[in-house]
C-alpha cells in the first residue's frame, strides 16, 4: 500500500469533517488501534529487523502528519464556529426584551422619604402620631377653642357626641404631643394621614397626607423659618427656589404666614400657578406662646416655628397628577407608575 496515497486520502477526509464530533470520530478511526496508524504499527513486529526502523519512522511521520492535520481542522472548525457566533444571525435589536415585573412604593412614601432625608440631615426627629386624636391635642392645646370659627372651616370628623375624640384634621397635634415629651431645644417633623369631612372630587379628598414641622429653641426667628424652608425646597427640587411669606392666620402660630414658592413649572405663568408664578405651598409661623405654654414649655425662655406641608398636594404637583382620588384608590395602573 502506498503510504503517501493513504495519507492524502486521510487528509482529504480530515479536511471534509463537518464538525468537531465528526472530527473526533475520524481521529479515533485514524489514530486508533484498527485505524491507519494502528495497522502500520501492528505490522512492524512482523517485518524483517532491517525494515523495522524505517517502518517505525514512517509510522511516526504518519502520526505527526495526521495529528497536525486533525489539529488544523479542529482550529478551522473552532474559527468557523466563532465566526458564525459573531455573525449573530437572526438578531433583531428592535425586538423588545421579555417583561421583568417589579414592585413599587407609593408616591407618598417617595416624597416622605425625600423630605425625611433632608430633615434628618439637619438633625430633625421623625415622629408619628395617632390618626384618631383627642380634641385637646387637635384643637384646644393648639389655641383653637370650642367656639373658634376655625373649627367650622376645618370640617372635623367627630368620633363621639361629646366631641372629645376626632379624626385629626392636621398633623399639628403631634407638635403638642412632642413638646410634652421632649426637652427643648429640638427639631422634628411628623408625616401622616389627616382627615376633613368633605365630599370628594378631583381636587377634594376627605383623607390626605401632611407633614408637620416644629423647631423649638432659643431665639428662633422668622429668618430661621425662611432659611429652613429654602433648604427644604432645595432638597426637594435640587435647586434654589424663591419663596415669599405673606400674612396668614392660624390660631396656633403668631405671627402666622402662608409660604408661597416660585412656580417650578413655568417662568411666565401656567395652569399650576394659575398665572401668578407663585404656588401656595405651606402655612407656617412662630409657635404661639399659648401653645408652648399648653405643652409645658416656658414661652419666655423658648420660641419656635412650625409649618405644615401638604404631602398629597406636593405629590400631585410634582407628578402632575390630575385627580387626588388616585392617591388612595389602590389602582395598580396608578401605583405601578412609581418606582420601588
Amino acid at each position, binding site marked *: 500500500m502506498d503510504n503517501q496515497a493513504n495519507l492524502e486520502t486521510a487528509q482529504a477526509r480530515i479536511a471534509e469533517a463537518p464538525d468537531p464530533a465528526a472530527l473526533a470520530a475520524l481521529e479515533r478511526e485514524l489514530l486508533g488501534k484498527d485505524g491507519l496508524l494502528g495497522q502500520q504499527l501492528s505490522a512492524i513486529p512482523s517485518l524483517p529487523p532491517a525494515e523495522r526502523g524505517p517502518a517505525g519512522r514512517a509510522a511516526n511521520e504518519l502520526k505527526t502528519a495526521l495529528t497536525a492535520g486533525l489539529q488544523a481542522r479542529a482550529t478551522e472548525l473552532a474559527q468557523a464556529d466563532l465566526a458564525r457566533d459573531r455573525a449573530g444571525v437572526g438578531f433583531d435589536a428592535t425586538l423588545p426584551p421579555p417583561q421583568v*415585573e417589579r414592585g413599587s412604593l*407609593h408616591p407618598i412614601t417617595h416624597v416622605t422619604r425625600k423630605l425625611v432625608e433632608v430633615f434628618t440631615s439637619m*438633625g430633625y426627629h421623625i415622629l408619628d402620631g395617632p390618626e384618631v386624636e383627642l380634641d385637646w391635642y387637635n384643637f384646644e392645646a393648639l389655641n383653637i377653642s370650642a367656639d373658634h370659627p376655625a373649627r367650622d372651616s376645618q370640617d372635623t370628623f367627630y368620633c363621639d357626641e361629646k366631641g372629645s375624640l376626632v*379624626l385629626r384634621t392636621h398633623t399639628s397635634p403631634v407638635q403638642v404631643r412632642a413638646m410634652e415629651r421632649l426637652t427643648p431645644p429640638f427639631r422634628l417633623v411628623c408625616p401622616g394621614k389627616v382627615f376633613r*369631612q368633605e365630599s370628594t372630587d378631583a381636587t377634594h379628598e376627605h383623607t390626605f397626607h401632611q407633614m408637620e414641622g416644629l423647631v423649638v429653641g432659643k431665639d428662633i*426667628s422668622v429668618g430661621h423659618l425662611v432659611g429652613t424652608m429654602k433648604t427644604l425646597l432645595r432638597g426637594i427640587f435640587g435647586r434654589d427656589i424663591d419663596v*415669599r411669606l405673606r400674612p396668614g392666620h392660624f390660631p396656633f402660630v403668631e*405671627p402666622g404666614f402662608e409660604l408661597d414658592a416660585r412656580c417650578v413649572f413655568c417662568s411666565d405663568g401656567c395652569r399650576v400657578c394659575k398665572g401668578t408664578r407663585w404656588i401656595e405651598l405651606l402655612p407656617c409661623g412662630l409657635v404661639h406662646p399659648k401653645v408652648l405654654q399648653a405643652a409645658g414649655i416656658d414661652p419666655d425662655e423658648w420660641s419656635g416655628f412650625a409649618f405644615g406641608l401638604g404631602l398629597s398636594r406636593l405629590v400631585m404637583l410634582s407628578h402632575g397628577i390630575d385627580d387626588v382620588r388616585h392617591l388612595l384608590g*389602590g389602582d395598580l395602573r396608578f401605583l405601578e407608575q412609581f418606582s420601588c
Partner: protein
Amino acid sequence: MLISMRWLGRHVDLTGIDPEQLALDLTLSTAEVEGVERFAPYLSDVVVGHVTERIKHPDADKLGICQVDVGTGEPLQIVCGAPNVAAGQRVAVATVGTVLPGDFKIKKSKIRGVPSVGMICSERELGLSDEHDGIWVLPGEPTVGAPVAEAIGIDDWVLEIDNKSLTHRPDLWGHRGIAREVAAILQRPLLPLETSMPELGSEDPVSVRVESPACSRYIGLSIDGVGQGKTPDWMRALLLATDQRPIDLLVDLSNFVMGDLGQPNHTFDRDQLSSEGIVVREARDGETLVTLDEVQRNLQPSDLLICSGGEGVALAGIMGGENSKVKEGTARLLLEVACFEPVPVRRTSSRLGLRTDSSARFEKHLDPTLPLQAAGHFARLLRELQPDVSFPAQLVDVGDWSDPACEIPLNPDQVRRSLGADISDEVMTTLLTSIDFGVQSQDGGLMVRVPSNRATKDIGIEMDLVEEIGRLYRYGNIPEQHLVGALVPPPVDHRRELTESCRDLLAGGARFHETMSYSFQSDSLHQMLGLDGDPYVSVINPVAEGSARIRRTVLPSLLTLLEPNRRQREEVRLFEIGKGYRPEEANDRGEPKEVHELGLVLCQSKSDNPSFEQGALARLMAVVKDLLGALQFPDLQFVPCEEPSVPWVHPVRRVELVVGASGKQAGTTIGFVAELDPGLAGPLGIDGELASDTAAACVSLDLLLEQEPSGTSFVPLPRYPGFKIDVAIVAPDEVPARDLAHAIEKAGKGNARDLVVFDLFRGEQLGADRRSLAYHLVLQNDKKTLTDKDAQSFLRRLERGLGELGAELRS
C-alpha cells in the same frame, strides 16, 4: 369679600395706583387678594349719547326715531321703544359692534322699515338693576362720546379678598378698614370721615331693654320724614361693584354703611313696633319667626331675638323679620345699630343654615365703639340724600360694654429677635402709628396702645404686635438664616426602621406594590367578612351612610381592591403598612389602642393544575418567609392554626406566623398567612371570569418590634466539600412534611444541610392519598470529606426512618 377701588378712594387717595400692584401689596402685608377684575367692563364699551331729536315712528305708536350725537360728527339714527326717551337727554348708547351682557351683539337693523344703528340702553340691559321701564337717563352732563363708566365716574376695579384670610380681622370687613391698611402701605393719609350724630330732636326715644348678655350694645335712632327717592348712581355703582344688588334707598344705604364701616345695621318700620318698644331677649322654646327671606324659623333659647310687643321682629345680628319690614311709603323708621356677641350669632346662623353678610361680621367680634359711628354715618348720609329727614328723638344707647382698647408693653429687642431683622425702634413706631396704634417710650421699651377696632380679638399679646410690625415691614425684607444648634443625632426609631425595611423588601425583591387606603371601612364589607360584631371607633358625621367605621385592621381594605385590579391584571400583589384602632382597649384618656400592621394580598387568576410552588398561598408564604428572614427573624415558623384569628380565611388552608420559638419556648404569633375562604370569591367579585387563587397575610409590626432579631453572626466557610443529592419520598398524606424533614435530618446525623423541597407529586402510580416529595440537599461535614459510602449509609438510615413513618424512598 369684594373691595371696590373707587370706594376705597373715598377713604384714601389712590391716584396713580395700579390695581394689580395694590392687590400684591395687600397680599403681602394684609390679606390674600384672590382676584382683580374690572367692574362692569361693558360700561366702558357703551358711550354717552346726546339725544338731539325724537320723532314718532310712522308705523308704530310706541316707537320713536331718535337722532343721537355720540361725538362722531354725524348723529346716529336709533329706533327706540322706551317711553321716557326725549330730546336733550344724555343716554348710554351701544353702537354697532358692541357686545352687551348675555353676549348680545349690536347690529345694524331695520325696525318696521326704519334703519337703526345702535341701541339706547336701559339699566337692566347694562346689568345695573332690574329697571327696564325706560332707558337709563344719565345724570348731569357727561361728555358726549366718552365711555359711560368714565364719563359719569363709576369706572372701577374690584379686588376679591379671600374671606379665610380675614377671619381674625373684624376691622377689615368694610372698606374703611381696608383703606386704613392701604394708607399705611402707601404711606398716604387716611382721609377723615365725619360720623358725628346730626342734630337730634327731644321726643322720647323708643324704649329698648336688653335682657341678654349676648347683646352688648344696642343703639336705636328714630328717623322721620323718609320720602321716596332713588339711590344715587355713584352709590348704586359701588354696591354693584361689590356684588350687592341695589334695591331701594333705605336698603342700599344700610348695605352701604355696612360695606363702608363693616357694621351691620337694620331698619324697622317704627309704626309696626309696639308702644313698649324693643326688647332684646333669648327666644323661647317653640317660638318661631318668619325672616325677611319668607322662611319660618324655629327658634331655641340659644337664639337671640329682637322683640316688640312680645313677638320677635328680627333674628339678632342675622336677619330681620318679615313683620317689621320697611315697606314702600314707610316714613317713620327705627335704625338699629348693635353689637351682638360672636358665639351665639355663629351658633344660631350655623344651626339655621342662614349665613348673612351681617352674621359673618358679628362672628368676627366687631368693635363695640363702631355702632355709634355707624349710626352717625347712616344719619348723615341719609340727610345728604334726603334733606327733609329729621331725627325726632334722642338716641337710645344701652347695653353693658366697655372700650376694648388696651395697652401692651413691647420690648423692641423681642421684635428684632422674633423677626430676625434689625428694625429700629423708630421704624417700629412709624409702622404701628400708621395703622392708628399709639406708641410711647416707657421703661426703656415701648408702650403700645391698641385701638378698639383691633383689640376685640386679634391683638392681645406682644407677639401680636410683632406680627403687625413684621407684616408692615414686609416679611420679604427679613434675611434668611440657618438654624444653629448642638449636633445631636435624633434617637433611633425602631418602628420607622422596620416599616421602611418592609417597604423596600416588599417593593424590591418581592415585587409587591405599596398602596395606602382610607381608614374608613364600610359596614357592608364588615358584614361580608363576618367582622360586623367587632367594636369600632366610628365617626358621627360620615361622608356617606354606612362608612363611619375606622378600621381595626388593614387587610379588609386590601380585599376591596382585588376585584377592580383583577379586571386590569392577571395578578395582583399589594401591600399596605397602616394603622388600626381598637376602642375596647382604650386608655384612661379615652384614646383607642392604635395598632400598626403590614397587610399583603396576592391574587392570581386560577389555573387548573398548579404546581405546589405556584399556588398563591405557597408564594405568599415564601414572600413572608423571605421578608422576615431579611428582617433577621430566620427562625420564622409556619404553624398550623386551629382557631383562626379572623373569620374570613380558609378553614384549613391557613398558617400562623411564629417567631422566637426554640426548645420549650413557644414563641410569639405575629400574624398569619391564609387563603381566602372560598365562599367569599363571589361576594368580593373575584369569581367567574375573574376566578382567582387568593392569599392574604397580616403581620403585626407591634408584636414584631417586641421580638429580638437574630443579628448576623459569621459562620466559618466549610473546609471540606459537600455533595448534592436529591431524594424523593413517597408518603401517605397524613404524614406532615415536617416529620419527613425530621427524618432526613435525623438520618443525616447533622450532615444533611440546605434541605429544599423542589417537587410535590401525586399520581395513580403512587396509590390513593399518597404523595411524593422531592428534596435537594447537601451532605457535608465540617471535619472530613464525606464519601460515597457515607451517602449510601445516609440513604439506608433514611430508608429505615421513613419506614417508621409509613413512608419510603422513591427509586
